[in-house]
């Protein structure tokens, strides 16, 4: 990154030949994405014009890079350029030109020379079993690098479900002991931006908010920004009318599926998932899973891999050794109760039949 430190986003954009009109369009779009009203747009403009860009260290642990893939496809704020110039991405081992020792030196220098100034963005998480050897970068365990870098960071952004809540590598039985970022560092504010991957506009929205207001966005009890994770998919879903009507897809090719009925019975996780998919959608707002006819997988919720099949409405009992659905257990209980009752009743009747012949035997009286 050849840009001078201390430059604002606007400075950088001008240098790259972006005109002011485009810049203002970007500011308006970003303000809207953050749920701010029109009167707040000048604040966004002012911040991006004047505030020096945030230096960001972007670490990659155990992950698939889908968060980065999503981020670089951010389309809402018009150009990828803007996104990348909004922050001063000083270290990102996937994207940077430097490699090997040279790359690591950049990170070490930032931690040493700018303590408390940079934002640590983490994609992926760290395995903890066997001293964390299942993920190493430059000969050191990722766990070590993460803790060292986090200790001096201003705050931490946990990108994606891996960093926020563990995702697939932490799914049962979690062979490497992978843990989400918030469980590995202490004393630092962590913004969780879950999703597999998170929506690009959500990622840029979080960064823009931080840059504009100089503070963390309001977080919910899971550390997620409320502005993007404050509503369920189900409550914003355009198929909700079919849910309320009681019209459900039963098989993937039935009439209901063709008419776009609700996917509840196909295992849709919309009712248990908080994300912005129905609002921002994906790929320039083209579509999102439910719109494409497939239920939501709940990828932004903790433990979504462990909630049995993606096509089941109810998960199985999470007790080891019991591979049964609550439906089966419940019905078994009810039937067992019925059988027990019938057995008791039968023996009571038999005993009474005998009793009436032997004249009122009342035993056990105290």
């Amino acid at each position, binding site marked *: 990154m050849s840009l001078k430190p201390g430059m604002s986003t606007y400075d950088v954009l001008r240098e790259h030949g972006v005109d002011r009109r485009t810049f203002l369009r970007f500011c308006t779009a970003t303000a809207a994405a953050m749920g701010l009203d029109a009167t707040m747009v000048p604040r966004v403009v002012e911040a991006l014009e004047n505030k020096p860009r945030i230096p960001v260290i972007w670490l990659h642990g155990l992950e698939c890079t889908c968060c980065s893939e999503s981020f670089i496809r951010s389309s809402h704020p018009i150009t990828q350029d803007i996104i990348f110039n909004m922050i001063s991405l000083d270290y990102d081992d996937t994207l940077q030109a430097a490699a090997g020792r040279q790359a690591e030196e950049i990170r070490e220098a930032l931690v040493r020379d700018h303590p408390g100034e940079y934002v640590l963005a983490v994609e992926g998480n760290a395995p903890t079993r066997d001293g964390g050897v299942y993920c190493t970068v430059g000969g050191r365990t990722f766990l070590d690098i993460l803790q060292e870098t986090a200790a001096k960071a201003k705050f931490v952004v946990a990108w994606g479900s891996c960093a926020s809540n563990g995702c697939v590598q932490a799914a049962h039985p979690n062979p490497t002991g992978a843990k989400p970022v918030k469980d590995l560092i202490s004393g630092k504010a962590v913004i969780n931006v879950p999703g597999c991957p998170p929506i690009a506009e959500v990622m840029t929205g979080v960064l823009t908010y931080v840059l504009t207001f100089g503070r963390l966005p309001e977080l919910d009890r899971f550390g997620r920004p409320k502005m993007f994770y404050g509503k369920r998919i189900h409550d914003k879903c355009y198929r909700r009318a079919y*849910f309320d009507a009681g019209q459900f897809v039963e098989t993937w090719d039935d009439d209901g599926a063709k008419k776009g009925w609700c996917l509840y019975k196909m295992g849709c996780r919309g009712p248990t998932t908080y994300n912005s998919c129905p609002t921002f959608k994906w790929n320039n707002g083209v579509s999102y899973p439910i719109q494409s006819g497939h239920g939501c997988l709940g990828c932004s919720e903790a433990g979504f891999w462990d909630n049995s099949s993606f096509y089941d409405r109810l998960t199985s009992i999470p007790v080891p050794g019991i591979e049964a659905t609550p439906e089966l257990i419940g019905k078994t209980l009810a039937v067992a109760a019925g059988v027990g009752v019938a057995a008791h009743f039968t023996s009571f009747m038999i005993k009474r039949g005998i009793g009436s012949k032997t004249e009122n035997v009342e035993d056990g009286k105290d």
Partner: protein
Amino acid sequence: MATRVERFDPSDVAAQPHRYFRRKYVWQWPIRAFHWVNAICILVLFATGLYIANPILSPTGEAYGNFVMGRVLQVHYTFAFIFIVNFLWRIYWFWMGNPYARSGFPFVWKASWWRDLFRQAGDYLALRRGHVHLGHNALGGLVYTLFVIFLGWAQILTGLAMYSESNPGGFWSGIAGWVIPLAGGSFQVRMWHYLFAWVFITFSIVHVYIVFYDGQQYKNGLVTSMISGVKFYQEGDIDCDNWIS
């Protein structure tokens, strides 16, 4: 309390020479009201809950012409709140009512309670008449505590947690939102809520049977007592509610 039953009155024998029953007003009206409201709530909640978990009706036509799931949810929520208010009412009456309103409490620190528990279980299994209670026997009390009180709370809290999901950070989420991380996620909360509903039904089957059996075996008018509040006992029966305080 350990109420001693008075020796039976000879004048009663004249009135009812073949059976020497005496009456006692045991269940006050708030208890009886609680019971029937609770029973209706459980039935309605179970029926609507089954539909919500597995919506089998499939109305045809346009979505605007139907409101099946919406209506079922409305009924479910309405009865859920009646259930909760009724529950709180019962807690109030636990303190305000007569000693029988407290007789179902598991007095686990009392040896007499444990003795009664095992004796009652033995009596039920051996189909013996055994001793008579006017309040709850220890076994009944324990079962109600586990399967009505505890399970009731579990259903209320998991239910409210799900109810609160449409407005995270709102009033209900402040009250029951903590259940979701405790259960390991909202999907797990649904699973427990569904399973507990079946446990309720299992309880109800056993409960209804035992009430009829108990009424037959002890001739104590147990079934009608939940309507009239009156229970019967016979000459020579000892009131065994001696752990009630």
